[in-house]
């Protein structure tokens, strides 16, 4: 880990922003600020470039909210997402409003048997919310891009 951490940020970014294999994602400050204000900044490497492209094309009507960006931030985030997006078909973002939580990879990693001890986050009645999109409820350091095992905390250990 030490040696990995001492690698320059540029190298990490060129490599897709992830510490290979251990699911800790380095997030750029712009991405973390702009795409991490209403929810966890979802790791760019967990969806494909086509999925991110569709997401960015309709930010004014983004899952029922206005998430539009200034042109400069829009350009910066678009190139970052294209550079860091996954190239694996298991990460394909599908449909008119692509989601990480519906990719084949995500669903395989979050099958009910994997989630034993991790109750789905409760959403208020009537709210059109997606419990699985609330990564931070199970991955306690999701805000820092850390989805590694050490960030997982089962229900009985909750605050």
């Amino acid at each position, binding site marked *: 880990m030490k040696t990995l951490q001492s690698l320059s*940020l*540029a190298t990490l*970014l*060129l490599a897709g922003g992830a510490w290979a294999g251990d699911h800790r994602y380095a997030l*750029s*400050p*712009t991405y973390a*600020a702009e795409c991490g*204000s*209403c*929810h*966890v900044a979802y790791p760019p490497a967990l969806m494909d*470039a*086509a999925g991110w492209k569709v997401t960015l094309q309709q930010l004014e009507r983004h*899952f*029922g*909210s*206005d*998430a*539009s960006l*200034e042109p*400069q*931030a829009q350009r*910066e985030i678009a*190139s*970052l997402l*294209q*550079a860091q*997006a996954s190239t694996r078909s298991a990460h394909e973002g599908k449909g008119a409003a692509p989601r990480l939580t519906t990719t084949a990879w995500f669903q395989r990693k979050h099958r009910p048997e994997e989630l034993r001890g991790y109750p789905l*986050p409760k*959403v*208020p009645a009537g*709210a*059109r*919310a997606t419990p699985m*999109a*609330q990564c*931070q*409820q199970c991955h306690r350091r999701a805000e820092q891009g850390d989805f590694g095992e050490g960030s997982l905390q089962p229900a009985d250990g909750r605050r």
Partner: protein
Amino acid sequence: MYFPRPLAMGVALALLAGSTLAASPTSPAELQAAWLAEARQSNPALRAFSAERGRSFFSTTHGSDWSCASCHTSNPGQGGAHAVTRKLIEPLAPAANPRRFSDAAKVDKWFGRNCKDVLGRACTAEEKGDLLAYLLTVKP
């Protein structure tokens, strides 16, 4: 998608240099003065903003599912949570959170988004001024 290396490098360098988004420092008093001047163009009789009007604006749903309080809670001196994603939101009242109303671009961006989501239109200068007048009365 194929990404040529020099471009990816450029992106990485831009990121290393920190965010390229400029901050635009301001203060609650500066914002109030600008909004008052703007509001007087359509309402020359306006003397001062009203914290009372701001308070009711903050907790009214304006015909949609949400009010400002849905995410910022009915006590903006405390933190809230996004109504859909449950992401925690820091307090909106400047006395509780000095970073609020200190960056004009950020203030404009969020008034733009949140007013559209809650009112279905942009907020007027008078509404913004009343709201801030109310927030300035809130103690942590």
